[in-house]
């Protein structure tokens, strides 16, 4: 068993690499990326100042443009587009050195040595050594922090340009997801509070739906064909036919105070900070719950129908098995037969579904977050795609993928725990 799970965990690695490469390529191939956007914005700014400008193509081609070439190079370097795509992927993973703190220098008039201020009054000496550039400290030793290279693309018309930079291994494997373009914060800092919000809704929703669905499914199976079974089936059909976010919309119209009843707030995770901070602890709890009622209903409805029907069918199937007849035949009480023998076997499919539920609950909720205007994890990912904020988009997708992979393994573990007959090989 242990070997099986170790193998499963090891198999996660190629899957993880495969899906991240896929995501990376799709995103990087996409036209209208952050570089082009920024250039367009700068261009639009220049247009407002009444200057004549060419198209983006002109600027990219380095023709007559408002952006000086050095600025364009700087932008490319900032967004990492000065490297080929496979290097960018490896830098992003953290297995290829990431270059930071770029400074441009120019070797003028055939000079082979120059000095560059790298901040705080420190000067580095750069020496041209064939194709390479050596960096020396002021005392003449080779610098271990700074490196330099000739910028071949930029060196034209007899000019010789080079860059001096520091390099480090820093990527998702070292926990560095980069810095968001739009929030101007480390991606992890942007994600953490939003992830908590989504977890709150997801886990509460999941807990509540299990709390309702399992007893309901059991009751339906035991009273199969009764009026209760029929009526609850109607509810289940309704729940199945209405997506969570659509139900959320209806609830908002009904109870959000637009045209009908003004019971619940129109959205948001909690009251705005100004109000929130004036509340007592009890008031904060009430405020939080008051905001959470509608979203959680919308959240839970998605898994409600499926879970209940699964529980019911699984129990029904077990009840018609021979071992139940045997249990009755040897004189056990009905209570014991059902609650000890039948139920234990019936929760197996539910247990195996738990991983899938976790994955969906945490990542698949952006529609509901959008309806209720909750600043959660899914909404952040969605907005990042709109803004072409690649560090956040990539970070978001990576986390979703990892959660899914882990959830799959969790399912197997849950299955093995509930059902001792299962032996994975």
């Amino acid at each position, binding site marked *: 068993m242990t070997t099986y799970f170790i193998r499963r965990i090891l198999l996660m690695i*190629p*899957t993880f690499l*495969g*899906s991240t490469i*896929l*995501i990376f390529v*799709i*995103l990087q191939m*996409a*036209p*209208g990326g952050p570089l082009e956007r920024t250039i367009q914005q700068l261009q639009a700014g220049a247009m407002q100042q009444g200057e004549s400008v060419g198209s983006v193509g002109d600027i990219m081609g380095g023709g007559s443009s408002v952006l000086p070439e050095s600025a364009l190079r700087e932008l490319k370097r900032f967004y990492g587009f000065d490297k080929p795509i496979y290097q960018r992927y490896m830098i992003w993973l953290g297995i290829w050195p990431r270059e930071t703190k770029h400074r441009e220098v120019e070797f003028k008039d055939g000079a082979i040595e120059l000095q560059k201020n790298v901040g705080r009054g420190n000067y580095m000496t750069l020496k041209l050594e064939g194709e390479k550039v050596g960096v020396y400290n002021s005392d003449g030793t080779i610098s271990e922090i700074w490196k330099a290279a000739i910028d071949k693309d930029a060196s034209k018309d007899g000019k010789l340009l080079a860059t001096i930079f520091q390099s480090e291994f820093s990527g998702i494997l070292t926990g560095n997801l980069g810095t968001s373009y739009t929030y101007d914060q480390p991606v992890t800092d942007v994600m953490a509070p939003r992830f908590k919000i989504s977890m709150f809704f997801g886990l509460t929703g999941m807990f509540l739906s299990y709390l309702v669905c399992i007893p309901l499914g059991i009751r339906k199976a035991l009273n*199969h064909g009764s009026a209760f079974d029929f009526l609850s089936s109607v509810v289940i*059909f*309704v729940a*199945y*036919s*209405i*997506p969570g*976010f*659509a*139900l959320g*919309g*209806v609830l*908002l*119209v009904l109870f*959000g105070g*637009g*045209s*009908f009843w003004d019971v619940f707030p*129109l959205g948001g995770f909690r009251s705005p900070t100004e109000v929130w901070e004036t509340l007592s602890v009890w008031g904060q709890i009430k405020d939080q719950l008051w905001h959470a009622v509608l979203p959680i209903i919308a959240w839970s409805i998605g898994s409600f129908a499926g879970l209940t029907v699964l529980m019911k*069918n699984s129990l*029904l*199937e077990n*009840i*018609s098995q021979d071992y*139940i*007849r045997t249990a*009755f035949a040897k004189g056990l009480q*009905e209570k014991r037969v059902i609650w000890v023998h039948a139920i234990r076997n019936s929760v197996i499919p539910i247990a195996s579904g738990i991983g899938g539920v976790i994955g969906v609950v945490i*990542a*698949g909720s*952006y*529609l509901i977050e*959008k*309806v209720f205007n909750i600043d959660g994890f899914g909404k952040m*990912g*969605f907005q990042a*795609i*709109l803004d072409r904020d690649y560090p956040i*988009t990539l970070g978001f*997708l990576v986390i*979703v*993928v990892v959660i*899914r*992979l882990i959830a799959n393994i969790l399912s197997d573990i849950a299955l093995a725990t509930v059902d001792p007959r299962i032996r994975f090989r």
Partner: protein
Amino acid sequence: MESKNMSEQQEISLSILKKRWLKFKTLRRGYYSFIIILTLYILSWFLPILINNRALVVSYEGDLYFPVFSGYHAGSVFHQDVPGEAVYRELKAEWKQADSENWLIMPPYPYSPYEDITVQGNKMFEEPSSTHWLGTDNTGRDVFSRLCYAFNISISFALILSTLNYFIGILIGGSMGYFGGKFDLIFQRLIEIWSSLPMLFVIIIISSIIRPTFFLLIFIYTIVNWIGMTYLMRAEFYREKSKDYVAAALSMGQTNFKVMFKHILPNSLVPVITYFPFSVVGGITALVSLDYLGFGMPPPTPSWGQMLDVGLSNIPKWWMVFAPVSAQFVTLIMVVFIGEAVREAFDPKVYSRLR
């Protein structure tokens, strides 16, 4: 000899199908839902002559015009003083008032899904009334009219999408189960990678790069959505492969292709058919979600999701939320009823009572 066998075989399989059809008919909830959806869907192909702002027939100074079919006629053709296209509703009222010899016949519900506030007499956010049954939206378009056209688009989308998914799923999943070995292993890895991605996000990324049309959207959605079917088909083909009739067919020199699609496939159709209505439900929901997020059909295509988006940005305009949600709900619940009845007819499970 062989042809006789064939016809016998067909008769037997026909009778099984017939039995199932008869069983399906006895499940009234599903059967009536099926009839209603089918009727509505067929009717929805005739929407241009049922719900439209162009007149069916115009008789003007002795000449007959058929604007629904012939398209654009400027207002000046009928001496109506409007810029651009003639406004037939007003024309009708005018002629009636003037008791003129000219006449025209409008479709039963005389509003088009595309005519917005630029057409004279249309207002933004009108409440439901006898003229606009479900009110108007943020650009003055008639909600009921858009709702009906969106029904046609949603169902067509879901049907084509499911069929395509089935086609690919059966082909790949079937091959995986049938050939097994390395082919199976490689595709399983690929599928695992592909299915670990959050699909709606992948679609959004792709849709934000290329503005999708109806068929492009179906294509994109198929790329990410074919996986569900492969699991089912792989298991089915894997099980059927080891049965005697397959060995018999192979020993008679049948090609792999024939064995797969002529012999195994008909024997693994039950999960395919019972799963289909639920696949349609998934397709409709997906389209609504994408349209709601703004990554679905290009505007101004009528769509439930787009209407829901307008409604949720203008909460007091309750009809803008209720109308699309109800339409979607009614459609989906009928498809679910059909699905449940189909499952009952094809794959009946009889549970014994407790003792």
